[in-house]
């Protein structure tokens, strides 16, 4: 089977700031990959390139065999129309460090809105589905709460449910627990573990090395816009071969 995600020689610059300097990696179906690295190494940028929130300057990214952001025809690339790009994104879930829930909507509405406004499902069907998803992340009791009335951990779980509502084949997590109080980290990681166990393909940027060791199938260490080291989490965490990996791990472990 072809991998779920293939990144080949991905380069991305912001002006003269060359952030991604040739990232190549593969994520298999059902694989959980953790992405770690120092601040500014380009982890968020790489995630954002995968769902085309950022345009890459060179290289290529495919998700489930489909080229991201472009259509290829007779060896030439054509930019996707806004609508096509949006459809492509809806198949890739993304969870943000700051949750980014819609504050003017209840938990239920946050989950429903994508199904109704993007997929065109009618509201009552969408609500039935959304309630199931909120129950799955342990929030069956909080359907009608506004985000401001939820704890950080609860908000992040709503955000996960909101992504799942689009039935994504791939989930991207950008430091999903970094903005949480320590006692709330566990509830979000539990949801992510359950998701991983259900077979979801996931790329997780995180500083939670415990989660990486326990749940991830692979670990990638990025620095300065390149992949420095990749492999099994246990091996990299206990036996890093690269100097940069060693010094980074000594700081976070």
């Amino acid at each position, binding site marked *: 089977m072809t991998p779920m995600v293939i990144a080949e020689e991905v380069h991305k610059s912001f002006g003269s700031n060359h952030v991604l300097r040739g990232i190549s990696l593969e994520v298999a179906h059902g694989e959980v990959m953790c992405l770690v690295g120092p601040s500014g190494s380009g982890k968020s940028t790489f995630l954002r390139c995968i769902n085309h*929130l950022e345009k890459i300057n060179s290289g290529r990214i495919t998700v489930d065999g489909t080229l991201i952001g472009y259509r290829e025809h007779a060896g030439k690339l054509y930019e996707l129309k806004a609508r096509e790009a*949006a459809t492509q994104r809806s198949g890739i879930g*993304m969870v943000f460090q700051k949750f980014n829930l*819609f*504050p*003017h909507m209840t938990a239920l509405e946050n989950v429903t809105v*994508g199904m109704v*406004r993007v997929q065109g499902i009618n509201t009552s069907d969408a609500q039935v589905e959304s309630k199931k998803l909120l129950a799955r992340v342990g929030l069956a009791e909080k359907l009608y709460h506004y985000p*401001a009335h939820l704890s950080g951990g609860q908000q992040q779980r709503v955000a996960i449910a909101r992504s799942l509502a689009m039935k994504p084949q791939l989930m991207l997590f950008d430091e999903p627990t970094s903005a949480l109080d320590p006692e709330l980290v566990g509830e979000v990681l539990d949801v992510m573990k359950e998701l991983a166990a259900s077979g979801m393909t996931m790329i997780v940027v995180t500083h939670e090395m415990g989660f990486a060791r326990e749940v991830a199938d692979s670990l990638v260490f990025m620095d300065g816009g390149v992949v420095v080291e990749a492999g099994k989490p246990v091996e990299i965490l206990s036996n890093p071969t690269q100097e940069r990996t060693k010094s980074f791990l000594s700081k976070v472990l």
Partner: protein
Amino acid sequence: MPSTNHEPIKAVPLRHPIRWAVALFLVAISAAFVVDASHRGAYDWKAFAQYIFDPRVVKAAGVTLALTALSMFFAIILGVSFAVMRRSPNPVFRAVSWLFIWAFRGTPVYVQLVFWGLLSTIYHSFFIGIPDIHFHNFYLGFHQTISQQFSLFWIAVIGLSLNEAAYMAEIVRAGLLSVDSGQEEAATAIGMSWWTTMRYVVIPQAMRIIIPPTGNEIVSMLKTTSLVTAVPLVTDLYARTRDISTETYNPIPLLLVASAWYLFFTTVLMIIQYFVEKRFARGHSALIAMAS
């Protein structure tokens, strides 16, 4: 353990002698003014009572209200459009929006109203200069079939709307900017199109910021309608009361009549604004409650 028979604090409250003195002084002055005004012949309260519900005045008040409502309606639609265009990925839209705001915010509304009033003359010479005069004929036909006052009314509405749209665009733009960029990102990430994101995520949140200054703009528009005499439209509240007073040689009571109507409308607007603001605080008042 809190004790059950605790004593409430008994203390001499802080005195505010200056506050009292100032308040008394102001009350005294106002009372003197009111007493004086109620006797002074120039105010002519009998004339005030006679004209306040005069059918011509009531009708003129209706015209002012219609001018305000229609102008604000179009100004809000245009303002939202231009503000959204300013953020569009399309550079042509951005440029058009910028130019519009630049031109209409940068010139006085009075001048714009005179300009729109003169428009028919401008179009006249303009259309004679080019071979295709179909539109020109149509335009003349328009003038022949619709009464002059009616078209002047719509010229006033157009003039007021376009000017106001420039201000509304800036207000809406500030509102849109106040919405965290993470909102647009999250909406885009679940596959919402740019417009769906605006419509369901960004604009509803921007409303909280947009409404208070928009309320001010409506109140301000109500008063700006008194400038439509520049078009020249003379059926609005101010022009009408002024015209009546030239017949009666008694301007002050009619100015008071006009002011009373303007005040009545602004008061009603303030009450409506209060309820609308409450409606759009959804999800946000909760935040304030949490923080405290």
